[in-house]
């Protein structure tokens, strides 16, 4: 360990905790290189930063796959690509089931419901299904609606904003320098362009990615810095859950301490963002992960199941929030 690395925590205390200024790429790298013996101190600092700049509230979200599988893209981590020998078959959800899923989500106390489709970008059929679904949900359920439908045209961005979509998710997935090793059917820059359009239209920007996809620590730091430069409203952080049949199917899940260091480092890079625990946390961190993350910089969770895999029961996470005395963010609050 270099002097810089061990010094980074005391620098972060002034720079991030007191002044609210995120760590630079090099500083994030120093954090990612901290030894396990300094992990507790790091997590405690990330937690303080989150409490100071975001508060104790936790934003709870449920997600649903509106269109599953058969995607023409080749994201190497994804079981929904139609280009791999994945066991996931195409499926469409109808509007009544979509409304039911929104109700189930609202019942947990969640304030966010994200509608996701496995597509390169929406076609007319998907846009009309989304419009019908959102109208039906708004009639019956009190919940914020987010969407994740791939790359958008300027017209589609305008349409989604007009439907009342308050936040749009589009992940950069990984560092720009690692992206070509993960996806070859579209570019990081194309993803960035959609994010720019989303922001311009006044929707909140939700952008994160997956760690543990063979990136180096340098690239993980690069990714944190690139996300920070986007200043997203929310960053969902996923840990690779190697899916059978995908090119990354044989990678090992990331070790727990590395996952926690990443959580803390991302928090220190982005003190004010909604940092969400997303997929793969159960695999990487086990049952203790939720607690460790929530005390290490996380202030938002996806509860219940994911798109093609299952999560912990929503009640386990909600009970944990009660135990940690972290109130659920209420509807119409802003963090």
């Amino acid at each position: 360990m270099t002097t810089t690395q061990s010094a980074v925590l005391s620098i972060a205390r002034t720079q991030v905790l007191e002044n609210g200024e995120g760590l630079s790429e090099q500083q994030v790298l120093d954090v990612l290189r901290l030894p396990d013996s300094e992990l507790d101190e790091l997590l405690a600092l990330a937690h303080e930063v989150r409490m100071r700049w975001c508060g104790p509230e936790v934003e709870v979200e449920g997600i649903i796959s509106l269109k599953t599988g058969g995607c023409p893209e080749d994201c190497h981590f994804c079981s929904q690509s139609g280009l791999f020998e994945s066991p996931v078959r195409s499926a469409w959800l109808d509007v009544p089931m979509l409304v039911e899923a929104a109700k189930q989500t609202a019942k947990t106390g969640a304030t966010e419901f994200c509608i996701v489709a496995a597509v390169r970008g929406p076609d007319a059929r998907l846009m009309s299904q989304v419009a019908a679904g959102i109208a039906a949900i708004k009639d019956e359920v009190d919940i914020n609606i987010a969407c994740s439908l791939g790359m958008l045209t300027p017209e589609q961005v305008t349409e989604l904003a007009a439907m009342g979509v308050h936040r749009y998710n589009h992940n950069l997935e990984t560092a720009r320098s690692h992206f070509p090793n993960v996806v070859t059917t579209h570019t990081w820059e194309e993803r960035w362009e959609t994010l720019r359009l989303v922001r311009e239209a006044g929707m909140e920007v939700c952008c994160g990615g997956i760690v543990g996809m063979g990136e180096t620590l340098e690239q993980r730091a690069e990714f944190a810095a690139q996300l920070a430069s986007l200043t997203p409203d929310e960053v969902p952080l996923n840990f690779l859950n190697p899916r059978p049949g995908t090119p990354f199917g044989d990678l090992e899940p990331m070790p727990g301490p590395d996952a926690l260091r990443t959580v803390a480092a991302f928090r220190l890079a982005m003190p004010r963002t909604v940092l969400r625990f997303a997929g793969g946390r159960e695999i990487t961190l086990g049952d203790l992960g939720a607690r460790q993350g929530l005390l290490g910089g996380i202030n938002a969770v996806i509860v219940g199941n994911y798109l093609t895999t299952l999560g912990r029961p929503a009640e386990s996470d909600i009970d944990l929030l009660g135990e940690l005395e972290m109130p659920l963010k209420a509807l119409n609050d802003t963090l």
Partner: protein
Amino acid sequence: MTLFCDRCGRPAADPGHERCARGRELEPPRYCPECARRMVVQVTPVGWVARCSRHGELTGS
């Protein structure tokens, strides 16, 4: 009747499904346990529905 592993679709009597069993704790089934057809699976926030074109629907949470 469980003739096939519902995670990998190979005969259940074959060895080597320990990893499948572990995986299934956090995954819905993907193959019909009766005929090994790939099922159409919809995951929802609180459960899942898996449909085999021949053997109908399975549900779980």
